[in-house]
């Protein structure tokens, strides 16, 4: 099995290379460039000078060659919007809010989702079940930016409980509440539904009936036998959810003005900042590939029947 995972790790390189070619081609196929006529007060001569400085006057494949040469040396290229700043600098300065947001949101989604799922399953057809299912339905059907707007208007503008914008790091918990709830409610709802369904399925298994017949207390039956087995499918969901939250937070970062990579990504696309688009896309791709690999490894850990060769 070790050989299998070594091969999977090595496969990351051609996968990223292919993604780099596709991304490079696509972004150059889109109209407009980083230095367009009519922007600011730039002159034709000025724009030509900058295009030459960054090799944008060369054929696309030559530009790709320049990019890859830098990439293999760890140089992600210059930020074309802010000349003098490198893309490495931007990622170095802005990774933390994205990772913090992703990790805290994943925790929120898991804790809230699993708790609601367990509650709903153990109190089937009760008010708690209806509330949990209601939350799951609303969470799954409300886009995160819509939820974000409602939360900001209510809790930041009206009641002034939380800030409307910004990020305070792991210690600035008040800045986290609204973006985390906005971003995490959909995955929390998804986890709640899966947990509930899985719990109900396990609860009907013979070994649960046996456990109860043995006279075990309900709490022990629930926690030791039902929850533990019901969470196996949920565990395998956490990987893609975490990867999705890490790489899919750009709308929430933009909406809450969080200085993360996601916001930089949006700005890079709008500004045709080619090196920054490339770097963020490759980084996101790497995170997703890594998450998928981790999930496959987790499968083997949680389910001994699975063996890779």
């Amino acid at each position, binding site marked *: 099995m070790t050989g299998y995972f070594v091969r999977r790790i090595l496969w990351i390189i051609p996968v990223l290379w292919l993604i780099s070619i596709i991304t490079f081609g696509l972004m150059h196929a889109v109209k407009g460039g980083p230095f367009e006529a009519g922007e600011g007060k730039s*002159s034709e001569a*000025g724009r030509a*000078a900058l295009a030459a*400085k960054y090799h944008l006057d060369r054929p696309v494949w030559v530009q790709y060659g320049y990019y890859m040469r830098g990439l293999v040396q760890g140089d992600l290229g210059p930020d074309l919007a802010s000349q003098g700043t490198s893309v490495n600098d931007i990622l170095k300065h802005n990774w933390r809010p994205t990772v913090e947001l992703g990790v805290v949101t994943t925790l929120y989604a898991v804790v809230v989702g699993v708790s609601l799922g367990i509650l709903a399953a153990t109190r089937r057809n009760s008010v708690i079940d209806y509330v949990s299912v209601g939350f799951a339905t609303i969470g799954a059907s409300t886009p995160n930016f819509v939820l974000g707007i409602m939360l900001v208007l209510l809790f930041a503008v009206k009641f002034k409980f939380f800030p409307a914008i910004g990020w305070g790091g792991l210690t600035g918990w008040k800045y986290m509440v609204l973006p985390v709830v906005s971003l995490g409610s959909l995955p929390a709802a998804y986890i709640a539904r899966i947990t509930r369904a899985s719990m109900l399925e396990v609860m009907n298994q013979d070994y649960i009936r046996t456990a109860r017949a043995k006279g075990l207390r309900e709490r022990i039956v629930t926690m030791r036998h039902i929850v533990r087995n019901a969470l196996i499918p949920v565990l395998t969901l956490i990987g893609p959810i975490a990867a999705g939250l890490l790489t899919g937070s750009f709308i929430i970062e933009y909406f809450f003005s969080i200085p993360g990579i996601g916001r930089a990504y949006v700005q890079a696309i709008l500004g045709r900042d080619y090196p920054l688009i490339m770097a963020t896309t490759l980084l996101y791709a790497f995170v997703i590939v890594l998450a998928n690999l981790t999930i496959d490894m987790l499968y083997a850990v949680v389910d001994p029947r699975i063996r890779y060769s």
Partner: protein
Amino acid sequence: MSIRNRWFLLLGALLSAAMVGAVACGGGTSSSDKTATAAAGGGKTPAATTAGGAPADMAPDAQQVLTVNAQSEPNTQDPQGVSYTYELTVNHQLFITLFDQDPKTSELIPLAASEVPTASNGGIAADGVTYTIKLKPGLKWSDGTPLTAKDFAYGIIRGYNLNVSGAAYGGFFTNLKGADAVLKLDPKSATYVQDVQNGLKDSVVAVDDATLKLVANAKSASFLSNLTLAVTAAVQQANVEALGSNYGVASSATQLVTSGPFKIKEWAPKDHATIVANDNYTAGKKPYLKEITFKFIEDQNQAYNAYQANQLDEAMVPAALYPSISGDASMKNQIYQEEEFGTRWITVDVTIPPWNNKDFVIGINQATDREAIGRDVYFGLRKAWTAPCPAAVVGCDPTIFKNLEYNLDAAKASIAKAFPDGKIPDVTLETVNDPTTKALATTLQAQWDKVGVKANIVTTDQKTLRADMKSHKAGTQITGWGMDYADPSDLWAIFTTASVGGNNLGFYSRTDYDKLEADQDAELDPAKRTAILKQLQQFLAADPPVIQFAIQLRTDVYKPYVKGLVTSPFDYILYGDQQLVGVYIAKH
């Protein structure tokens, strides 16, 4: 108690705890939070001053902290590299130029210079092209070293290095002797920087520490106005060379040696920049504010939310919210509004049909109901305006453009003249994908439909639109011109052949117009210049390059404790950002 009841109790307890916690945390969301006072008149009420000259109602120094929205993150703070308003708003606080503009009269006023050169004070030589500019005594950099004429010479020449200023104002100040040749040099050449210096060595000369000599390539009425532009600001050569390509960017911003009333304390990429008072500032009055934080929030609605949540002391008013804000008694006094020194128009590509037919362009101008646009699309934040020049520009005569005013009968006649066979081609309205611009496009579509012109709306992003304009595929672009300085040359040069492909994306190129534009700048006699400007405007009224529709009424809200604001049509992003030295936080 049953298990079910215990769960309800637990849930209730958790909800109660959350509510208590949330209430306890309300009202203090960040260190910069402030609570607005409801004082009538707010920051607009003039205050008495103390014996020391400070306003009597000024809060202690520790509270002289202002948090505003720069709307976007500056790409740089290198004065030779700044271009956008969100960059200039900050840069204006950091670097000084030789001259500034009076916020009310728009006249040139000295900033680093001791006076504005004239023929009578000996500043302009008899040849009319040699300018001698004396600096104020005792000017200093933020590091305490003397700021001299050599620093200005270095800065002005550096502005012609297109590797530095290519995306900004490089190539803008073409009136300097030798500038045209320098701008044709190859920026990739190994000797480029030296070649630029050599090309301008006789036209930019530091005679001594306090005297700068500049030589124009011809007599030019707008020459001195160029010296209000950031691209002509002094920069400290040692600082530039020490920071190299990092000069002006976020990573080394705190090492930037500045000459203005503020210097950079911190620049957190994608989040904010904070500037603090420069104790070595001697060119003018020292600022009352000790610290200003510029947040980088692109979305106006988000910024306004943050203003309401007391995270910002200032925000631009989103157009759609203006009616409710201006109708709210508690908010009304927080509004600052002023006409910008610029105009809004739709650029049309006059090289492609049907826009290459001047009668059609006149007809579309006449079919455009500007009052309705201001009212329905911009909720009163645009003033209907038919002339392409703001009234305050020297020589601007809006009456010349009366033939372009909204008049459906005249529009139909003009379009019939353009297409006598009645076969009017469809036009494309390519616009960016934001709600206001799309609303403008649909309004124009409906208005033009009344005269039989079918407009197809295509939404895209700004970059694609510009690329399509440049390749003659778009045909129209909703844009305008914010004036850099009050001299009319800054405006009328846009429609010259020299600007084609740059700011002239309508490719308007008329030899007679080019001559009129050159003549008006070369004419130093005000009366004669006004006469030429009149001819120039008559030319544009008869053969319009754009569909002019509005002047923006720029509208901000400031918390009532922000006082001393002096607004100017030249303000960039914030109202009063040209004159922030007079702003202070009142006791509240």
